């Protein structure tokens, strides 16, 4: 990202002070094409599906359902699932139920720092339509207005069995090459950013967290 970019390729980063703007990259993210040879892409998708590293970031009450996944009763490591404490290394973001506006800011930061291809799994009814917090002043109702969701698991609360079933469904989708949430986010980047900035009033981070 060191090479000079045209103005259409750069982001404004208007939320940052002039001094801070020097510290962050203002490059616009680019959508990625699949490998030209289909067999290579299928093989890559098979590897991605069988090695799902979940970001250990509990974003709502549903995060409590993530903990038993690794325990003896459910043992999701059989399916190649592992917890990863850093967004750089993880490929699945589980939105654990409601997303308050304050958390949404952190969710966006963490999501953008993850390396593609990355997948979002929305857990519970709250990311679908707000659930029991539908008229709350500080939770977002439709999560896919702010970040692209690859798979929904509804319920309040879904048990870990359902989460495991959802993960297996996600694996099928990835193997079929139908999980392109990361590209959808970049293709509709301006729309997503406008929605995010509409709810997050104190936007004091770069427009894209590289």
């Amino acid at each position, binding site marked *: *990202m060191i090479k000079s970019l045209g103005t259409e390729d750069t982001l404004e980063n208007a939320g940052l002070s002039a001094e801070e703007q020097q510290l962050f990259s203002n490059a616009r993210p680019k959508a990625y094409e699949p490998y030209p040879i289909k067999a290579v892409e299928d093989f890559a998708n098979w590897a*991605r599906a069988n090695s799902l590293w979940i970001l250990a970031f509990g974003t709502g009450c549903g995060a409590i359902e993530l903990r038993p996944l690794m325990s*003896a009763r459910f043992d999701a490591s*059989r399916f190649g699932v592992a917890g990863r404490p850093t967004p*750089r290394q993880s490929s699945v973001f589980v939105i654990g139920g409601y997303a308050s506006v304050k958390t949404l800011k952190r969710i966006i930061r963490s999501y953008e720092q993850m390396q*593609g291809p990355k997948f979002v799994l929305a857990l519970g009814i709250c990311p679908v339509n707000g659930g029991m917090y539908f008229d709350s002043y500080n939770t977002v109702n439709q999560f896919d207005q702010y970040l692209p969701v690859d798979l929904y698991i509804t319920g309040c609360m879904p048990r870990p069995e359902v989460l495991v079933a959802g993960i297996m469904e996600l694996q099928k989708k990835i193997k079929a090459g139908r999980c392109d949430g990361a590209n959808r986010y970049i293709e509709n980047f301006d729309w997503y950013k406008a929605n995010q900035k509409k709810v997050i009033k104190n936007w004091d981070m770069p427009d894209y967290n590289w």
Partner: protein
Amino acid sequence: MILEWLGKIGDFSLTLLIVTLYGLLVGAYVERVIAKVQGRIGIPYSQPFINILKNFFKRTAVSHGVMFYLGPVFRIAGGIGTLAFVPVIYGSEMFSNFSMAGDLFLVIYFMFFGQLGMALGAGESGHPYSAIGIARGLSQMTAYEVPFALAVISIVIQYDTLSITGIVAAQQGGWQNWTVFTNWVATLAAMLAFLGMMGYSPFDIFLAPQEIPVGPPTEFHSAYLGLLQTNRALFGATKLILFMNLFFGGATGWIELMIKTLLIYMVAVVVGVAYPRFRVDQGIRFFFKIPTLIGIASIIYVQMVLIS
């Protein structure tokens, strides 16, 4: 001359491939053993391979500078360099690598080299947890190198050679000639250092998953992480082979090598599943107390009992 060298490099590449694959497989086996202890089924044997493939197939990677690129490269250079000077199969021309007089010194240097390269790379990533992980890792390494170096000095005096092949040759002719039976004091000190070297509990203070995310590699992702994971398998297997050569009589075939290294690995695993993580100060003080004393005792033991 050139053909001879090319042949040697070819042989070494084969050794490198076998040792890396073996390291990955044995890593999966150990994960499964730990899972069984915790009442789980555990990962499939193919999981480490899939993880590495997945990381190389990632579509994006961000950089934090030149040293950030070079960190994993230095790390894997350390792993390959260590293996290059360790004779893998005793008596085999093909699998003795570049073993020569004085290779023990080079191997100990190379074991340090990778860690220092990684420290520079992870330092440039700018993540505070990386810096904490490096501080912990380097101080623990300094601590366990003391008993390990003392044990190595002890067996160097005992066998009067600095060549690993020479040390293995001196242990041939039956199990009673192995260092573990002739110089059990040095072996004990080295095996205690080995616990720290393998990074399992209670000495996993530098990775410390739930505490300082994953320590030095916190910012490493995609292909960088793929390189680090490959190196972890390769370097782990190389350390096992080194310990087998120094203390357990070496191996004359691949089957013997696999059985012996697996048993040596199990020492670290059994301790790892039985004990929780030490605090930083506890982990470092541990090595300066009893293991260091045992290391000094091993030199006295060699001088007073074995040589005289």
